[in-house]
Each structure stands twice: as C-alpha cells, then as structure tokens.
C-alpha cells in the first residue's frame, strides 16, 4: 500500500451521497461501499448498494435470499470487483485487487461453515501459513501455542490450543476463525450467517466474543435471517432488496415488521403461520420405541398421529437429526423399534422405510438432500425412479412429466429441467428436495430444518405447505432450531437434550420459556 493511511481526524464525515452519517461520530467509517453495482452477465446482483462499517459498531445486513448480500460480502472481501462504485477505507478511496488486499486492509470474513484443517491443532489453524518461527526457520510450537492461548483467552473462550480441529463444534470452529481474524489485526469483521448452525448458548457466546471485539473498536457486519439475533447484537441495520439499498438506520428506531416489509417490498402476511383450524389428529402412524444409537441418543420413544405436526426441539447436537436418520434407516440403530402404520421397519434400510410411507427431508440440503451436479429433473425423481419405470425402463419422458408436475405444484423457479440443481437459489433447491419427497406420497414426513437459510417468502410457503399436508392427514415430524417456527407450527413439542427425550409438551404448555428450559436442563421455578 503506497498511500499512507490518513489520520481519521483529517477527514470529515462525508455526506455527498445523501445518506446520513452519524453526526456525533466524526471519524469516517472503517470500510464503506458507496453506490456499488455488480452484474453477472445479464443478472444485476447489486444495483447501487451502500454500506458503512464504523469502528466499534455492529451493523446488520438483512435482505431476502437473492437480495445481493452475498455479492456485497464478496466485494468487501475482495473476491469480486464491482462494476461501478466506490470502496473507501478510513474515508480514502481505494480498490481491492484480490482477497489479499482486503485482508491486508484488515477486513476479515467469517463464513457460515468454517473451513479448518481438521488434522491440525487449533493453534496451527489460527496461525496457518504464518506460524511464528524459531531458530533456523523452525516453527516455534511453543510460541504458537502461547499466542493462540492468549488470543482465545482474550475472546473469553476456553479452547485448548493443542487439540485438533477435528471434532470441534461449528461454534468452536467459528471461534477459531475469529481468533485467526483477530490475530491478523482485523479492523472489520464480516460474518455471513454465523449463527445458522448454532444453538442458543453458542449464539450467546459468539455474541459476547463479538461484543468484546467491538469494545476494542472493531467494526462488525452481521448477516442473518434471524431478527431476534440482529436486535440483540447490532446497533444499525441496512436493508437490501433486489441488489439495491433500501434503508439504513439505528435498530432502535425500527421494528421487525418494518424491516420485513422493507425486505420483501410488501407487508408481511405473517412471519410464521400460526396454524389455525386443527382437527383432532387421527391414528398413530409413526411409532418409535426405545430407539438407541451409541454415542448419539438413548432410549428415544414417541409417536406421531395422522394430521399432526410434532416438533422435535433441542439444542444443536442434542441428537435430533441423528434420531431422524435412524428412524429413516440411513443410520443404523443399536436398539429400538420403529413402526409406520403398523409395519415394523427393519433397521438401516431406507428403501423399506420409503415403501412403508416414510420420507425424510434431511438437514443438509447440499450434501444430503440433493445431487447438486445433477439436473433438477433427476433430483426431483430420484427416490421414485422405480415407480416411474415401466417394465424396468425409464422411457417416454415419465420422469420429465413427474418432475415438471411437482416443481410446478411447489412453484419452483428454474431455468430448465435439465439445469444442474446447484444453479438454483437456496429456497428453490429446498423446494426441489420437498418435491422429491412429496412426490412419493408419504404418510409420515420428517423435515429436518426445512427453512434453514431460505428467504422469508419461501419460508412462509414451506410453512403453508406443511400445514396443508397435515390437514390432508400426513403425520409430520418437524425438527427445527427456530423456536417461533416450532411454536407456530406444532401441535406438540418434543424436546431433546444430550441424546435423550426430556419433554413432551402439548401445544398449550409449549412456549419459548418451557422449551428452552427443557432443552438446556434448567428447572422451572416452582
């Protein structure tokens, strides 16, 4: 960097673009993007986006999927060059030629799923590529450990720097990434949906780390779909819609409803469907007894009736997804019985479960739910290829018709049925997964985090869909980490803690407090 960094006092706050800068904070923003445009071919991802990150301030960036948040982050990280617009560091116009420029300028990005070296220790991960050197260029293991230890202590997280990264929870992996960022003298920390896979206490810990950094005058950009977290952590919020800047302002002066309205450009019909008319549930369709799998869960038993939505709540890592996988048969079970409509399922045989009318929409859409490289059509018809074949052969466009019908029913947006499903947006990918399973006409549907990482519009559609399926008599087991979703959708709430089922709350007894208490193991006050 040839240009010397000016003293913050030397530059008065700029206001020529017509949006407010805080009057009582004269130093210019650490990083600012002004009127940034970016197109990918014919698709405009950013159309005049603004953002200012101030020292010591947590700034929220919200918007539906496809609003341009990812592109904005890529511009900040130096991964993408904007077509037009200004990037400023401390009020000085500059340009990032690549990610290394952004890093050198003190901009660090924490991704939703950190990429650590699993076989290296925590300390080695923090200092990967720039380990402290001892004599003869040897890596000074001890200095590295001590510095990593000091960093983690500064973040207030008791992680052993010597332990390998393999086996760390996603939350701990993020902490390691943050420690890495801090060791790099980061002045602006960009976090792309960091809480998507975290449980409540993990989120709290992350936030206290972020607040500690903020106190050291780091600027923070926080991207999230969860408004409760945005409100808890951030001071200011910027709304993006269709790549354009909609508003920026203090969070205290706005409301969730208003933000949502700005994001979608219309009044929100309802954030979560509160299911209204409920008929008495029918017969028990899914019955699970004494289900155990070593190291994952023990002695889990519950049932779901036709037309009932039963939520399975709990912290991440409580064993909810593992139960779902064992019920479906993707994972083996060590003990227990699973019965679907009176038929006992053999363990470890998903095909038998499917034949009995069970379907599982798995938690990880990209790894478990879809073959990203395969076409929309192939994905949508994969579990049903046998039923669609005639005399064992798939001929005459049967798959095509089936795929088109279900993609249409769920209003999936795609270019062509032959396009790889990986080219679709997250919400539409999720619809393909749902279509794939709904087409099997299941009697029991297990959905694991069905709305994770998808935009509000699609989310509401998924909720309506689940409600409709239940009304049609499908038994639904809903695994979700979002309490409002659980409380809004479920007839009953099961809660798991550390591999055990600890509560079965009827709708009337289930509220945020009771579920959190059960999930964390705190006793309710008498």
């Amino acid at each position: 960097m040839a240009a010397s960094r000016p003293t913050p006092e030397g530059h008065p706050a700029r206001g020529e673009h017509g949006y407010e800068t805080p009057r009582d904070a004269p130093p210019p923003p650490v990083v600012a993007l002004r009127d940034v445009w970016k197109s990918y071919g014919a698709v405009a991802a950013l159309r005049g986006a603004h953002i200012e990150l101030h020292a010591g301030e947590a700034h929220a960036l919200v918007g539906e999927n496809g609003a341009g948040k990812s592109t904005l982050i890529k511009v900040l990280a130096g991964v993408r060059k904007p077509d037009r617009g200004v990037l400023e560091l401390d009020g000085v116009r500059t340009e990032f030629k690549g990610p290394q420029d952004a890093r050198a300028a003190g901009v660090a990005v924490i991704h939703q799923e950190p990429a650590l070296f699993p076989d290296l220790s925590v300390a080695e991960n923090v200092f990967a590529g720039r380990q402290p050197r001892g004599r003869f260029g040897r890596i000074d293991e001890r200095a590295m450990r001590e510095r990593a230890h000091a960093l983690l202590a500064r973040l207030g997280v008791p992680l052993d720097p010597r332990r390998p990264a393999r086996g760390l929870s996603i939350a701990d992996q993020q902490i390691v990434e943050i420690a890495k960022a801090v060791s790099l003298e980061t002045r602006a920390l960009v976090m792309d949906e960091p809480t998507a896979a975290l449980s409540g206490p993990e989120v709290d810990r992350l936030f206290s780390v972020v607040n500690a950094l903020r106190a050291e005058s780091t600027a923070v950009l926080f991207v999230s779909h969860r408004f409760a977290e945005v409100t808890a952590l951030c001071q200011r919020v910027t709304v993006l819609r269709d790549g354009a800047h909609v508003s920026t302002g203090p969070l205290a002066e706005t409301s969730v409803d208003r933000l949502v309205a700005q994001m979608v450009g219309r009044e929100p019909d309802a954030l979560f469907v509160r299911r209204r008319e409920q008929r008495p549930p029918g017969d028990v369709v899914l019955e699970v007894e004494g289900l155990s799998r070593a190291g994952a869960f023990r002695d889990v038993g519950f049932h779901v009736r036709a037309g009932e939505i039963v939520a399975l709540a709990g912290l991440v890592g409580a064993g909810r997804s593992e139960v779902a996988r064992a019920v479906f048969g993707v994972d083996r079970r060590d003990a227990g019985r699973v019965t679907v409509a009176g038929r006992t399922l053999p363990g470890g045989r998903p095909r038998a479960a499917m034949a009995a009318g069970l379907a599982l929409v798995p938690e990880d859409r990209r790894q478990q739910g879809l073959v990203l490289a395969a076409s929309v059509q192939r994905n949508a018809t994969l579990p049903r290829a046998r039923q669609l074949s005639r005399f064992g052969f798939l001929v005459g466009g049967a798959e095509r018709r089936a795929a088109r019908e279900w993609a249409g029913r769920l209003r999936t947006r795609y270019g062509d049925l032959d396009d790889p499903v990986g080219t679709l947006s997250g919400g539409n990918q999720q619809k393909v997964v749902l279509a794939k399973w709904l087409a099997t006409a299941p009697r029991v549907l297990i959905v694991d985090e069905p709305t994770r990482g998808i935009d509000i519009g699609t989310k509401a559609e998924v909720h309506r869909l689940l409600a409709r399926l239940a009304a049609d008599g499908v038994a639904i087991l809903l695994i979700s980490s979002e309490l409002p979703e659980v409380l809004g959708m479920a007839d009953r709430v099961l809660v798991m803690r550390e591999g055990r089922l600890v509560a079965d709350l009827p709708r009337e007894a289930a509220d945020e407090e009771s579920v959190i208490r059960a999930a964390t193991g705190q006793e309710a006050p008498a």
Partner: protein
Amino acid sequence: MSTEAPTRATRAPLREALRLPRRLAGWDAAVVVLTVLTLVVASGTVEEFGTTRNATFLILDLAPVLLLALPMTLIVVSGEIDLSVASTVGLTSALMGELWANGLPLETIIPLAVLAGAVLGAFNGLLVTVLGLPSLAVTIGTLALYRGLAYVLLGDTAVADFAREYTRWTIGSLGDSWVPNVVPPILLLVTVFALVLHATPVGRSLFAMGANDTAAAFAGIPVERTKFWLYVVAGAVAGLVGAYWTLRYSTARADNAEGLELTVVAAVLLGGVSIYGGRGTLLGVVAGVVLLTSLQNALRLAKVSADALTVVTGTLLILSVLLPNVTAALRARLARRAAPAAPPPREPAHPAPAPRGPAPEPTRRDGTP
C-alpha cells in the same frame, strides 16, 4: 406425449425437440467424430488397414477391451474403479487351462470361468463396500494378487490343446462374411449395459451415487449393495473375457491379458466418463474403445513397436483426464469474464410452468397466488 403437447408447445418446443442432440454435443460427440476421422485417415494412409481381413482382426482384438469397458463404465460412473479386471482375465484363463488339463469338458469349464470371475469380483466388492476401503487401493492389491495366483496355478507353462470346434468358432466369421461370430453377442451385451446405465432406475442411481453418495443414500438408494454387485458383474464379465481370450489364442497362460486394464481404463476415460464419477455415456465409451484399439491396430500395421504403443495409450489416458479439466477451467474463466459463474442465488428468468392446464397462469415473482 399427447397429453403433454399443450404445455410443451408453450415452452420452447424447438429446444425440447433438440434435447437429445444438445446433451450429446459434448465430449462423447467429439470422440465419435474423432473415431470416424481416425478410421477414415487410417484407411487412406496405412496399407492393409482398410481391408476386411484387418477389420476381422481388429474386431477380435477390440472385443476383450470393449467387454471389460462395459462394467468398468458403470463402476467409474458410480465413483469407483476396478484395476483388477485384466488380472481376473489372466486368473480365469489359467484356471481354464488347469481344468482342461484335468479333463473337464469346455461346456462345464466356460460357466465355471464366469463363476470364478464373479467370485473374484465379489472379493473386490466385499473389500470396497463392507470394509469401506478405497477401490483404487483394493483393486491394485487384487491386480497383483490375482495375477500371482494365475502364476501359482500354471507357472510358466501354457495349456494349448483346447477343443478345435470352440477355438474355431471364436475366431470364425458369420457365414461367408468378414463379420466375426462374436459380434452379435457383444452387440447384445453393449445394448444391455447401455440400457441399464441410461434407461433404468439402477442406472440413475449409479449417476447419483457417483456425484454424491450421501445424497444417494438419503434418497433410499442401497449404495453399498449396488457397488458390490457392480464388482460381481465386472468379475463375471472378466471371467467371460478370460474364456474368450483363452479360446481366441488357444492358449491358457498366466500372463494372458497382462496390462490390459490400462487400455480399458484409458478407453473409458477417453470415452468421456469422468474419473470423479457421476458423468459419462456408454456411447462415448464404445467410441473410445474403437478409437483406441483402431489407433493401436493402425500403428502396429505401420510397424510401430509394441512398446511405443503403450506410450500412445498412456498419453491418451492422461489427455482424457486433463482435457475435460482444462476445458472446464477455461470455460469457467471465460464465463467469469463475460458472466461470472454461480451468481448469488437469484431467481432464474423463467418461472416454472403451472402444474396443469394448457394455458399456464403466470406465477407472480413474489410467489403469492
């Protein structure tokens, strides 16, 4: 077809009609063109290449490669590999010699050879699926193991006095023509494998597990079991090739078909099957086999030494792995310049057609009715 007509008509009918050619217009189409070109050029420049006599020999030489390439294609598409096929040919050939020397009739020996191949394949399959070992390591191991067993059986000796009517039929031709007797059964097998790969649920599941075996398992596909049976089939076909090889040259030797796995894998990759799994067509593989073997045949006729031929095979193998990666990288770079790949999740331009009815109601962008 007829019930779909209205909906189709509303959506780019021309593109729908051209769907198959569009899918073909890739690597495998290029290989088909290159194969035809090679045949034409070789006929024009290499003396003797274009004769019917040579065509007969070419087909007889090509047969084992093509046969082994059929199950190999399925295995590579499913994300695995089997390098032991040529050693399985050698071992079943040695076994045939041993059994023949002990006085068993060929009517019994040939089915036994196929069965023995299946058992050898099942051993590969067990190691890969039940023990979860990487197929590359497992089949390099059995490549050595099976060849070694062949030497244990026959040593350096050869068994050569097989029944005349069998050896004659194997190298003989249909009637008075130049078309070898083995052509109809081979065509049948090619058709069967092509149908299985491209038109059955099993074929679909092979592509799925090759691209992402986790997602395949979550879709209810028995990934391990399917892979096990693939190895059994590959072994059985190798047993059949063992029988063919023995009768074609009328000798059972431990070193029969030594090193043939290289040609087979090269032909499969040359035919456009991705070494990473999940992609490929059987048509491309057939073209790859024809291209590679006729190139070898032409060069041999042009008096190029056998050692130099291995250079050609090796080079083609590397090129067929390299070129798709290079072109993909180039395409990605070009795309980034013009319209960068993987834009942020954006809605594609066309909404999905309404599920039913000839005149689909346009879906609104916000997804509300």
